[in-house]
């Protein structure tokens, strides 16, 4: 993928994440902070599908943005064909792993496994 395409995705995910995290914070402000972290409240959030989709989207957006940012930092730290390939594929793998782990929590909750 061209670097400009990657950076467009990088900027796009940042803007979208800011918007969605703002909505997420507003939703959390409907109750006090301690209550919003109650076990039952968290489960209820995950079971409310529109909200769960939004949390999943935030996870995906921040994972893409964050791991591309890490890739950029690591590329500037050291250069070399093998190193750069390892960094790119490593960040991609870590990104998918994080998304899979986060999604697993939401899916397990909705399947009644928690």
């Amino acid at each position, binding site marked *: 993928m061209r670097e400009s395409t990657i950076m467009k995705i990088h900027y796009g995910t940042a803007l979208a994440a800011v918007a969605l995290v703002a909505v997420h914070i507003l939703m959390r402000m409907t109750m006090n902070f301690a209550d919003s972290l109650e076990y039952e409240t968290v489960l209820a959030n995950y079971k409310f599908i529109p909200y769960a989709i939004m949390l999943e989207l935030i996870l995906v957006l921040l994972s893409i943005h964050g791991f591309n940012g890490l890739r950029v930092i690591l*590329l*500037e730290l050291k*250069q070399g064909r093998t190193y750069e390939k390892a960094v790119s594929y490593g960040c991609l793998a870590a990104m998918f792993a994080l998304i899979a782990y986060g999604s697993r929590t939401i899916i397990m909750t909705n399947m009644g496994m928690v």
Partner: protein
Amino acid sequence: MAQVSDVADNQSSQTKTLRIARYNPEKNSEKQFMEFSVPVEKWTTVLETILNVKQHQDHSVGVRYSCRQATCGSCGMIINGKPRLACFTKVSELDSDVVTVEPMNNFPIIRDLAVKFERLFDTHHKIKPYLDRDDTELESDAKEFLQSPEELEQYIQFANCIKCGLCNSACPTMATDSSFVGPQALAQAYRYVADSRDKGKDSRLKIIDESHGIWRCHFAGSCSQVCPKGVDPAMGIQLLRGYMLGFRS
């Protein structure tokens, strides 16, 4: 009146300490500084003090220079911590009794103050620093490529680049990323992309659209701060990004 003028000239003459970084990569393991006392007038440039040292005190000081009028871009060096042209920097404007000169950062050192320009010239050459089009104004029946003042205004400041390398020396990304294209080449890429006579925009943008290309600029702006010709590479890079993000065509 002549006597009064002589007295005034003598009063303006001062002695300053010139600290020169000495380093020969074939002999030394690290850089060392040598101090010299040099006479300076209010119009004396740093290059003149270095040449004074070479002439009267130590002829082995390694320095590159040529035009002495900020045109050739040969005498770039770090003067009192900032990348500057030695021929374009007066000792009096430094406002210091000690003038420290070092080789430019982010360049391999040949000896003392002289650095290798290969990387600068390679990246400059890489972005195709010429008008890229199939036809030519040299054809017998063709007219010259006309350009309006407004079209000229789009790039003219970037045409003032003298390839002195001061911007690359000041760039923080150049310090860590050995493959980064650098502000000099990127500013020149913009200079030709913005030229209405040029037809090679797409190929030029493709060259700089790589993992160590234009996107590694963090807009520190130090390149624009140090340019002795008033070029603003940081702005050129941002304008170039505009083309790549689709804000400019």
